[in-house]
């Protein structure tokens, strides 16, 4: 079957071209990460976050019985949201 043979050749070429391309593409991406990103990471390091300087980013409501105003606001927001979703029917 001549047609089949040609299809196999096409499929084989695709396989070869495809795998070469995939490896080339992701390989270049490795180089990109190792050069560009690595250099950027050194030039623009993440700011060092002192936990106490951002007390409201993650509310430290772990101490029992001591709830910060932000949490209260969030809770009352959640209550409101909860009610608006469950209190109104259809």
């Amino acid at each position, binding site marked *: 079957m001549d047609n089949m043979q040609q299809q196999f050749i096409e499929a084989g070429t695709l396989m070869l071209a495809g795998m070469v391309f995939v490896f*080339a593409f992701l390989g270049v991406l490795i180089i990109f*990460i190792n050069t560009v990103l690595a250099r950027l990471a050194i030039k623009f390091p993440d700011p060092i976050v002192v936990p106490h300087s951002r007390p409201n980013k993650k509310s430290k409501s772990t101490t029992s019985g001591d709830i910060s105003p932000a949490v209260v606001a969030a809770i009352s927001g959640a209550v409101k949201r909860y009610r608006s979703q469950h209190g109104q029917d259809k």
Partner: protein
Amino acid sequence: MDSLTKLWLSTGLANFELGQVVMMLVGCGLLYLAIARNFEPLLLLPMGFGAILTNIPVAGFSEAGGLLHYIYYAGIDTGIFPLIIFMGVGAMTDFGALIANPKTLLLGAAAQFGIFATLFGAIALNYVPGIEFTLKDASAIAIIGGADGPTAIFLASKLAPELLGAIAVAAYSYMALVPIIQPPIMRALTTEEERKIEMKQLRPVTKIEKIIFPLGVLMMTIFFLPSATPLVGMFCLGNLMRESGVVDRLSTTAQNELINITTIFLGLGVGSKLSAEAFLNVETLGILALGAVAFSIGTASGVLMAKTMNKLSKDPINPLIGAAGVSAVPMAARVANKVGLEANPHNFLLMHAMGPNVAGVLGSAVAAGILLALVGG
């Protein structure tokens, strides 16, 4: 009496064709897998339901004016739904592990051999009577090996829409079966010692790297493979929204409500392609067989690549994480972690496997772009 006759003639019972009944059972089977076996329920539940709806006689869900007709042509034929999903997946993806250990990109590349080997296999299946796959069909089938649902749906809708139903069924079923398909292959190709290998802890990755990474990926795709830019572009948009930190409300919506809404309709629309003519034939069996082959070859390629890299690299690489290169995020990474723990209870591979895992997503999007460029034209 006239009314009763009319009512009878309008019933499903008076109009059923055998193929429709069988396809409804297929739809019920998908629902069973989704609900009872937890097989990718987010897509298989609406998809199974769509399969039932589209095969209802008289109702005309997928004919002009029918609900599934609108959904399919507005969202899937145009490619819009898979691209929105891909944006949401991008917004959910953390490339930190990949950036910290970029070598794992090679694992994601190796696993794509599952795709291209399957393409070859699909053409070989043309020897089977009743199967006649064109190169476009073969490419659409092969992408199952990418183990990435939206990519498979997107490519199939462009290259072989009539096979879309079977391809989606195979892709999502095997993705759900990853914990069953992969471990035996992983164990067969690795020694106990290799599975015990512990890897170096990953370095922390800075914010700027995470922001520039999706842009770099997009730029490379633009330079080398514009045909992949719809998929890669929307993925990178989602990821940039996530990592930039300035549009959290958009990122949250993309990861939640928008992807949920789209998933419901994507599932229904894909299910609408599960008609008897399109599904009940030898080709579907071929597609299911090829899908299993694709996953297996992809897994094996990833593991073998990792073994090779472990020998060449100065830092040890556990070959198990190569299996995660097929994508199927995050299932494949969890499987690698689990098989690793069996050999060494103190060896947590999850974070290390996330690298090849997300690399696999990029890899299969690139592979899809190549197929579109070379076969789609």
